[in-house]
Each structure stands twice: as C-alpha cells, then as structure tokens.
C-alpha cells in the first residue's frame, strides 16, 4: 500500500504520462516529418510536376542559391518579420492590458477588436485590395486625395501596406493572448505595489510587464514563425508584386513550384524555409531561459 502511494507520487511529480503525446506525435509524423523527408528528397531531383522525377544532385540547390530572386525573397521575408513584430507587439500588448480591465465597455470593445480574426485571410485580402484600389477604392470613392495612393502598385510603399494588413488581421489574436496573460496576474501583486506607492505607470512596468514574460515569448514565437508562413493574404493581395517587392519566401516557393513548375527548386526553398523556422523558434525558446517551469511568483 505504502509503496503504491509512493509510486503514484513519483508519477505525479514527473508530470503526466508521455503516452498522452502519442496522438499528436502520430499526426506530426504523418503530416510534418514524412512530407519533410519527401521535400528533402525532391530538392535533389528535377521534376516538372508531370513527368519522371530525375535525380539531379545539387543542381536545384545551385539554381536556388545563385538566383538573385531567392536573396531578394529572404530580405523581403526578414523585413516582414521585423516590421510585423514592431507593428504588432506593442499594439497587442497595450490592447491586451486595456481589454483585461473589468469595466463593461472594455469587454464590449474587446469583442469588436476580435472581429478581424473571424475573417479568412483571403477575404481580408480581397476586401483590402478593393479598398486600396487607386481607381475604384476608398480614396477616389470618398474623394480623399491622401488615400488615393497607388498603395499596392508602388514598390516603395507596398511592403508597409502588407505589414499593415497583416497587423490588422493578427493583432486581435495577440491581444487575446495578452488579455489572458494579464488576467492571470494575481491582484495581490498590484495591491502590494500600491501599498509601496507605485502609480499606474510604475505598476505597468514593474508588475505587469515582468509577469507577462512568458506570454510575450509565446506571442513573439507565433508572430515570428507565423511571419514565415504568410502566404494566402499576400498571394491574394499582391501576388508577390509589383515585380518582386512582396515575393516572400513561401510565396517564392509556391510560384517556383506551381507556376514555373520547378518542383526541385521549390523543394530546396521549402527546406530553407523549414530550417529558418526551426532556428528562429529554438532561439525564441532559449530567450525564455532554461528553467521554464520555475514560478513567476517567486519572491512575491
């Protein structure tokens, strides 16, 4: 009897059984690992999608790595990651803190902020494409010259327009994450801070922000890795254009594979994309520190 209790205790202290992960791992194996191996194999072949798959050594890799469009796609992707992060992180943090308040009007606003997330990316892209049209869009429609720009046709402007539309769609999601994070902070911390004479600003910087550390890491990981996967929205909005101005890496991969019908090169691009995604995700996990499960409330 005593030994049984101690076994159970040991089991509990080790956390839930590893077997619980099996269904997820099976899905992961079938839909991620196996295709990944397939893509790695295809990157050493030349295949037009129709005929025979021919082993072709490194020629796809050589073509991809020497193609200036690939370099350009990497730069555009890096810009999207950085600008998206700069645009989305502060706004969602502040909105998240704001909507976590108990006031009724804040709850109502939170529902409104949430609406863009309910729309599919393709629908968002089509709507913005129509709104931003320099001839039929909202600028000429409302007669406001400042809005009558060639938003999606100007190579210098288009990247920021894309960042804006992405932010419009995804800020609600990150706001939700932060809202949940803020609501989990114990009220006692704020009470203690108040007793110590901290005002609202000080409470934000010394209680809210440190307490949100892991929420920030989660949100940032999703933001950064998600930026690598933006495809549908950009594809519908600009199709990578004008020229190569918004040809992100995933879009470049798709267009190489399914428009130019060069599956070998597209697979090589896919491998590059996966490696970058892995490295970024690992780096962000590292930022969270080694001892992730340690309490955030130590010393509180």
């Amino acid at each position, binding site marked *: 009897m005593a030994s049984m209790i101690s076994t159970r205790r040991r089991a509990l202290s080790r956390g839930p059984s590893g077997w619980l992960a099996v269904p997820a791992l099976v899905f*992961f194996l079938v*839909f991620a690992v196996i295709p990944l191996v397939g893509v790695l194999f295809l990157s050493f072949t030349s295949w037009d999608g129709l*005929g025979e798959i021919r082993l072709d050594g490194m020629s796809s890799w050589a073509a991809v790595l020497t193609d200036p469009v690939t370099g350009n796609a990497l730069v555009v992707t890096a810009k999207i990651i950085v600008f998206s992060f700069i645009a989305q992180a502060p706004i969602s943090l502040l909105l998240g803190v704001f909507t976590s308040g108990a006031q009724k009007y804040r709850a109502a606003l939170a529902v409104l902020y949430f609406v863009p997330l309910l729309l599919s990316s393709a629908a968002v892209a089509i709507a913005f494409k129509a709104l931003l049209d320099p001839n039929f869009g909202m600028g000429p429609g409302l007669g406001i010259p400042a809005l009558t720009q060639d938003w999606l046709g100007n190579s210098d402007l288009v990247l920021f327009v894309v960042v804006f539309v992405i932010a419009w769609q995804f800020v609600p999601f990150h706001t939700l994450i932060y809202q949940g994070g803020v609501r989990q902070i114990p009220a006692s911390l704020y009470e203690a801070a108040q007793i110590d004479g901290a005002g609202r600003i000080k409470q934000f910087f010394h209680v809210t922000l440190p307490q949100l550390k892991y929420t920030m890491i989660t949100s940032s990981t999703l933001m950064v*890795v998600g930026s690598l996967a933006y495809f549908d929205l950009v594809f519908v909005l600009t199709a990578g*254009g004008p020229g190569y101005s918004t040809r992100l890496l995933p879009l470049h991969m*798709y267009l190489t594979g399914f428009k*130019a019908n060069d599956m070998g090169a597209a697979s090589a691009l896919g491998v590059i994309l996966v490696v970058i995604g892995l490295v970024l995700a690992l780096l962000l996990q590292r930022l969270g520190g080694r001892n992730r499960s340690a309490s955030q409330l130590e010393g509180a």
Partner: protein
Amino acid sequence: MKFRRLQTAATALTASALVLSLAACGSGGPSGGSVSADSATMWGLTGGNQASLQNSVDAWNSVHSDQSIKLEFFANDAHKTKVRTAVGAGQGPTFIYGWGGGVLKSYVDAGQVEDLTGFLEQNPQVRDRYLPSVLKNGEIDGKTYAVPNNNAQPVVLYYNKEVFDKVGAQPPKTWDELMALVPKFKAAGIAPFSLAGQSKWPNLMWLEYLVERIGGPEVFADIAVNKPGAWSDPAVVEALTKIQELVEAGGFVNGFSSIAADSSADQALMYTGKAAMILQGGWIYQGMKKDAPGFVSSGKLGFTTFPTVSGGKGDPANVVGNPSNFWSVSSKGTEAQKAAALNYIKDGMFTEKNTQDLIDSGAVPVVKGVESKLEASPDKDFLTFAYGMAKNAPDFTMSWDQALSPAQGDAMLSNLDQIFLKKITPQQFVETMNATVEK
C-alpha cells in the same frame, strides 16, 4: 533535463510545422460527386464561356444519363495551376482544358493525354467542322491531342468612343499616333491605356504585337523552337524599348501593376471612362456585354487592330492571341470516362444550340459555316470584325506564354513585369531569356 530539452525541440518543431503545412498546398481533386462517382469530370473556366459550356453539358447529361459529365468551374489563373498539379498527381479531370502549345506538349511528353488522331480519322465529321488553321494548334508532332472547344480569341485594341469624342481624338493607326494620343488623354485627366499588370499575361500582349509588327512572325517562330540566341533579334529589343517609352510617357493607368485581370477591373476602367483604351483578348467583349450591357449595346465600345510600326516588317493583318481553347482527354481516366468524353466531343459540342449560345454570348465559334449566324447577331459588328481578323490573318501567333514551355513562359512573364516597372533594361531581358533556351 533531458526531457525538457526534448520538449523545447518539440515545441520548435511544432512551430515549424506551421510553415510546413504550406507544402500541402495545391493538392486535391474533385470530391463529392453530384452526378455519379464514375462520371467523366470536366473543369471549365469562369467568365464569358461559362454559361454556354454549362448549357452544353446540362443538355448532354439530360439525354445521356449513362455517360454523364460532372462539370466544375475555376478562375483562369487559379485553374492553370490547379489543373496541372492535379494532372501530375493523377487526380486530374477527364477533360483537360488548355490552349495548345508548350503546355499541351508537356502533357503529351508525360503521357497524360490521349492521342485523338485515330478518333478524328474514324469521325471525319468532327475534324471537318473546325476551321483548319485553328484545329492545327491542337497538334504535336503531326498528331492531334486536343480539339478546339469554344471561340477564336484574337487580341484586340478596344476603345471608349465617348472618351475619344470628348477629347476629339481618332483611334491610333500607327505607333506614332498612339504615342501622340498619350499626352492628349493625360491632359484631359483620362488614362490612355488600362492594363491588368498584376496578372502579368496582359503585359505580354504588348510585347507580342510589337514584335509581330516590327519583326514579323518569324521572330517568335524562332523563339518557339528554342533556337539559341533567338531572343537577341533586334525586334525584341525595339519592342521592349517602345514599351518602356510608353510607360515613361505615362501611357498606362495609375496603379496598373496592382490590377488583376481575374477581377475584370481592367475592362471596368475602360468602360467607365477612366481609361481610353485597352489591349485585351477577344473574350473581354463577352465580359463587357455582361458587366456593362448599356455601354456595349449603345455602340460606345470601339475596337480596332493593333497599330502599325513605321519601318516594321510584319503584315498589319497578322494577329496574336488564342486561336481557341481546347479539350484534351486524360489518359488516366477509366475506359468509361474516356468513352463518355469522346462521345461528348463527337455529339455534344458545337451542336446548333451550343454554337448559337456562343454567338449570343458575343463569341466567334471556331467552326465552319457560321457567317450568316454572325451577321444575324445583335453583336454582328464585333463578331464579324473578330471573325475576319482570325480568318484573314496570314499569320495567327499563339499567346507566347502558352506556346513556350511552362518554365520559360513563367520566366518571360516575370521579366516582362520588370520591364514594365523599369527595373531592368531590354538588354537584360534578352540575356535572361536567352539563358532559358540553353537550359
């Protein structure tokens, strides 16, 4: 500790799975048979010929319940990608819609489409109903792999008569007249030309016609057979230079590089009077007839041939565009599906009703003996114009992106886009394209 590291790796892997899920794009075939699971399948294009194709298949299915056809429609650009991917994955439709040319050749090389030569020999009435010059475009190495299924689609210079009257201008007959019109329309606050630059292939119409007018049909004929250095022909450089001069002069509508043809915004610019002219395929007449019926029926829509270029070698009667669209029959279909497909091609297409439907939609069917029907149509001005263009052209060059191999076609469209954006010079274009020939 060990477990924790594993957990970190797993989290990272899951995050990257987000990225990976993209690789699953573009799969999928038809699912959920409304007709029956073993019916022949057909993927058509949305737009001008959608209604006549739907009618034709409905009429067929109502009589031939044992050989029914399941029809689905897709937008042009999406369809091109989808059908090819599906065919490659063995999930393609029984009827493969196409343009002939290099794309058809890639299907033939991969053994994906049926040789229809024997079928045409057994059924000479099918072969004989077509205009021979059009039927020829479904041949690869002397064998027929595709038969025409709709209308002749020459590229036409459309213009808005109302806008021309307002400015007091005449449609351009020469390139110099065309360039002279640009400042005139700009001064009136009207864009000289509309262009769906985001779709890229409408840009190509400019290059096709200019090269044709300057250098004649031989220039592209050499390019099409992959003659080394064929892109270096001076006609190509001159055509590209003229395009960049027109862009420089402000010839194209503000924001042309973000306009997509699938949304028909390019035609709308012309019929709403925001742009004076548009160079587009014969099919947009059908689109405008549907979207702007008043504009078309009141005779405000003008149309003419592409201007000549002084000193050019090309015959002004030569035409570029699509001779027609085509049906190929998938060799991966079941015997029953193939039999149904061939029977439909034999008896279901270009019936009296189908031909009349096409004409009523504003299209010129590519079959013989339609002159009197075209004359009787309310759209006879345009129809006889387009029919005459297609029939009398000494040379009808197929759209280059369809005539070339898919990889070359894509490289050409991307680089031409760069020409319109003035990011590369004509010489750079020529060098890049010559490099694709050596591949």
